[in-house]
């Protein structure tokens, strides 16, 4: 293993091969600038959902680097390129350091008293005049658990509004919903350690190499060792995972349910079913088998445009597996029939009886580092502690915990999902929208609509963030927030591993931790409980954590066995962690399904096509014993299909080097240089037939809007265009929207449509037209060559490298220095 390598050019570093069942060998990655370190402070990654544990290096009160934690269960010392370099964005020159308020149309510098005074006056006025339904909160997948819980209590019991959701709605809502539909409750069944044991790994719409680079390193190390797992990959793009797969299916976008139904059909037809498991732990087998009876590979082949023989091979791979691990991400979640498709992957696992044992399980992935926490805390469309808003006893528990009347907690309907919050704002019934840690002016679909809505006179917007984002620039009040490394809190990754992230340095200027901002708001609003005491009785992160522990007690996400001390000492620990499981819980459902019983489940479920609620009575009749529910779903054609005017399918996604709307990664030199601007991907055959080539300047237009960028010719399936979704306008002359060069944010083109079950917007099923604006001038598209964006002709673009600034350490063994 080399000691130092360019981690932009070689994002996954060197291999440490291992055999099935062995622990994943340690490789300690580090990136340090300058000489000497005063202190190492524990943290975990905030730039993807893997939850990689690291120590932050501090010198003279500044962050100067990071190193992976060798003792941690999640990453065993490794870090991804975003982790190695991304911390530098904390030092960006344009950090927000004072509150801003809009006066005479302009944002002006102000102070905390004035800014908070404005927000509180407006809130009180709206509550009096219009009631709690006039106030909405749209938060992040970037804050800490303590902050989400405080926000949830503020919104649900303080204001009493049903309008609280996170941008995790765009990212992980389908993961949560699919788990709820199948297992009656949220909570990841499997663990990352299942990669160490599996013999077959199926990736459904999951570009793991780019979205969870450290988990992909784990897979690469298995692939390099003896008895490697066999891979199945479903993705329309030629991802690094596809390249390593035994079977790669590249279906037309919007056809996942057809494909999955055909795979289920084949399992039933060849009777590769674990009948004993199905009998003991599930309901609904007959309906599922009947539902897929006509879904032959030939039928699916016509819909998905993949060879029937390949579908059969995929089914054989799944059917022959002895230890099957499936993972699911945005190719399913952000696509047509999202929940219906994700649920079919759960069905696959259940039919094969592959759950709750080493190497067997399903990972319904998250995209964001703290997405899981929004779900647990009820800062998205759920009630805290995975409680069921339709279950009176669950609401009563919360009311008792918060010492408020039950009526004060809105539970007359499901909490309002983000896209509907924005619709209410557009209609004018939501009049104050508080946006924390997210950038809807770039990340929501159909941006022209979103910009107009955010600008509208009738909507008062509060934006709490680190930088002058596109959204902040449109706000009425901007609150400067502290970030990772500047505040303390916990967060939980996709496989339920909780990490503690401690304050290492002071935030810049007057910036404050999100928790302090929320506590200040609650104090100024003077929220009281039933006895006249302050509704929120805590004052700092440890206090919020303890309050959350009480809320989580006895629920699936039980944190009562955890403490800051334990997390400091041991690194990541998986919930539930309580008196019975003091070391945490590696896998759920190892003794059967545990949270689907009618009295404990988080939801009674929804119709997978219409989103209609299943009633409590129906659920009790269907599933009295609380087993897993096998839910069939019929395939529906996508809502937007190609036409003469818009002949190409259009999908969006992300690249390895960026996160979100580049708020941080665009301010990190190595990452910015690796993928500096927008591009458009097209397949080689499609390009040839249209007379287009690498570097042509093109316009991609849909019924909503258009973007302009250079063309990258790749091995993506023909008939499909791809746009990376990270690029916005803060670093262009337009600042908040398209300037003279036309649109550059992918979401100019995407459609306002969402999955009726999970309410997650569809970013992967638009129809578009492609026009050449100017021929190439010799400049290739600014797309990386190390990823799914690699040119079909390797000579078409120079390889992506990072140079001396991108050199990082990697060592096979934990360095002898003590861990903090």
């Amino acid at each position, binding site marked *: 293993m080399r000691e130092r390598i360019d981690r932009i050019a070689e994002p996954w570093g060197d291999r440490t091969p291992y055999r099935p069942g062995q622990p994943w060998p340690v490789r300690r990655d580090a990136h340090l600038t300058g000489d000497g370190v005063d202190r190492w402070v524990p943290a975990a990654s905030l730039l993807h959902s893997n939850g990689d544990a690291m120590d932050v290096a501090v010198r003279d009160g500044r962050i100067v680097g990071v190193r992976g934690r060798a003792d941690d269960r999640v990453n065993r010392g490794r870090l991804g390129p975003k982790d190695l370099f991304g911390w530098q964005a904390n030092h960006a020159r344009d950090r927000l350091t004072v509150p801003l308020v809009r006066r005479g149309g302009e944002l002006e510098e102000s102070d905390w008293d004035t800014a908070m005074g404005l927000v509180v006056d407006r809130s009180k006025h709206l509550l009096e005049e*219009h*009631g709690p*339904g*006039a106030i909405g909160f749209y938060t992040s997948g970037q804050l800490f658990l303590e902050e989400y819980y405080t926000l949830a209590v503020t919104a649900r019991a303080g204001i009493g509004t*049903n309008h609280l959701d996170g941008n995790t709605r765009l990212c992980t809502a389908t993961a949560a919903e699919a788990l709820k539909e199948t297992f009656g409750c949220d909570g990841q069944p499997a663990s990352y350690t299942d990669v160490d044991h599996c013999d077959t790994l199926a990736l459904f719409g999951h570009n793991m190499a780019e979205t969870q680079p450290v988990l992909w390193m784990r897979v690469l190390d298995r692939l390099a060792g003896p008895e490697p797992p066999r891979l199945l990959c479903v993705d329309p793009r030629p991802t690094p995972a596809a390249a390593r797969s035994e079977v790669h299916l590249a279906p037309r976008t919007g056809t996942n349910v057809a494909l999955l139904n055909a795979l289920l059909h084949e399992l039933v037809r060849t009777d590769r079913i674990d009948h004993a498991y199905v009998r003991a732990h599930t309901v609904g087998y007959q309906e599922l088998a009947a539902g897929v009876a006509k879904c032959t590979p030939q039928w699916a082949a016509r819909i998905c445009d993949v060879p029937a023989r390949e579908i059969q091979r995929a089914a054989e791979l799944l059917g022959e597996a002895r230890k099957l691990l499936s993972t699911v991400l945005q190719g399913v979640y952000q696509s047509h029939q999202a929940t219906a498709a994700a649920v079919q992957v759960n069905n696959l696992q259940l039919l094969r009886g592959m759950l709750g044992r080493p190497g067997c399980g399903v990972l319904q992935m998250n995209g964001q580092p703290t997405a899981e926490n929004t779900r647990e805390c009820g800062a998205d469309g759920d009630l805290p502690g995975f409680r069921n808003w339709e279950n009176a006893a669950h609401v009563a528990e919360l009311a008792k915990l918060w010492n408020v009347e039950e009526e004060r907690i*809105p539970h*007359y*309907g*499901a909490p*309002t999902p983000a*896209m*509907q919050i924005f*619709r*209410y704002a*557009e209609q004018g*019934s*939501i009049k104050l929208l508080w946006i924390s840690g997210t950038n809807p002016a770039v990340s929501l679909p159909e941006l022209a609509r979103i910009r107009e809505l955010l600008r509208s006179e009738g909507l008062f917007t509060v934006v709490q963030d680190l930088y002058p984002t596109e959204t902040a620039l449109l706000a009425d009040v901007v609150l400067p927030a502290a970030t990772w490394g500047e505040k303390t809190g916990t967060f939980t990754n996709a496989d339920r591993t909780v990490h503690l992230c401690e304050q290492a340095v002071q935030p810049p200027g007057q910036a404050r931790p999100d928790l302090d901002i929320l506590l200040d708001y609650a104090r100024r609003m003077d929220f009281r409980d039933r006895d006249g005491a302050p509704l929120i009785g805590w004052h700092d992160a440890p206090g919020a954590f303890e309050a959350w522990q009480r809320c989580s007690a006895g629920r699936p996400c039980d944190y009562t066995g955890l403490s800051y001390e334990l997390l400091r000492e041991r690194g990541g620990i998986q919930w539930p962690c309580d008196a019975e499981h003091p070391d945490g819980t590696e896998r759920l459902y190892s003794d059967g399904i545990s949270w689907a019983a009618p009295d404990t489940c988080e939801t009674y479920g929804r*119709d997978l*096509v*219409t*989103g*209609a*609620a*299943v009633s409590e009575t129906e659920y009790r009749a269907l599933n009295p014993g609380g087993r897993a529910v096998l839910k069939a779903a019929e395939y*529906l054609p996508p*809502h937007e299909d190609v036409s003469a005017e818009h002949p190409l399918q259009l999908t969006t996604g992300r690249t390895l080097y960026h996160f979100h709307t580049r708020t941080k990664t665009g301010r990190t030199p190595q990452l910015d240089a690796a993928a500096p601007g927008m591009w458009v991907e097209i397949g080689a055959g499609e390009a040839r037939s249209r007379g287009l080539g690498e570097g042509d300047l093109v316009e991609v237009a849909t019924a909503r809007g258009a973007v302009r960028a250079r063309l990258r010719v790749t091995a993506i399936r023909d008939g499909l265009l791809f746009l990376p979704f990270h690029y916005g306008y803060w670093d262009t002359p337009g600042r908040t929207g398209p300037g003279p060069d036309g649109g550059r944010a992918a979401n100019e083109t995407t459609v*306002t*449509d*969402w999955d*009726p079950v999970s*309410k997650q917007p569809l970013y992967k099923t638009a129809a578009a037209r492609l026009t050449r604006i100017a021929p190439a001038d010799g400049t290739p598209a600014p797309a990386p060559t190390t990823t799914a964006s690699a040119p079909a002709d390797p000579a078409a673009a120079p390889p992506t490298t990072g140079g001396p600034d991108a050199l990082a350490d990697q060592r096979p063994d934990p360095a002898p220095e003590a861990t903090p």
Partner: protein
Amino acid sequence: MNPVETVLRTLHDDELALHDDLLAAAEDHRAEHEFHHVATDTARWSAEHARLIAAAAADRGLHLPADRDPAALTRLRRKAAEDLAPRPDGPPGLLAALTALHLAASRNSLHWEMLAQAAQAGRDGELLDLASRCHPQTLRQMRWTNTLIKTLAPQLLTAS
């Protein structure tokens, strides 16, 4: 026409009408995105039901036109327009549309119920299959409109 055939004809016309009403309401409420798309998706079910009913009716010598005759169409359209038009004293637009759709689906559901019962009493396997295939989707249309009303009413009726 025997009484069962009358039910078939009624159901056929009403499924076609629900199909049209769903599409019309989807068009009127394009900006209510979830409603728009699901209405369009479930309209397909009603069209399919009408087709299956017509096929079953044809087997017993009863001809049900795939396109309704213009007079009936106008009558139905007028009725639909009345049903769907927001009443001055009624709830706001989308809630009114959902109410009308829910009532139309409930009416169809009752007719499916009648047909299924008649099929069982008359040991008519073909009709029973037809009802068991279609009726669940009608019930789903009802649950869906009900869910949307429950979800949207608090905001649309209280926060103006």
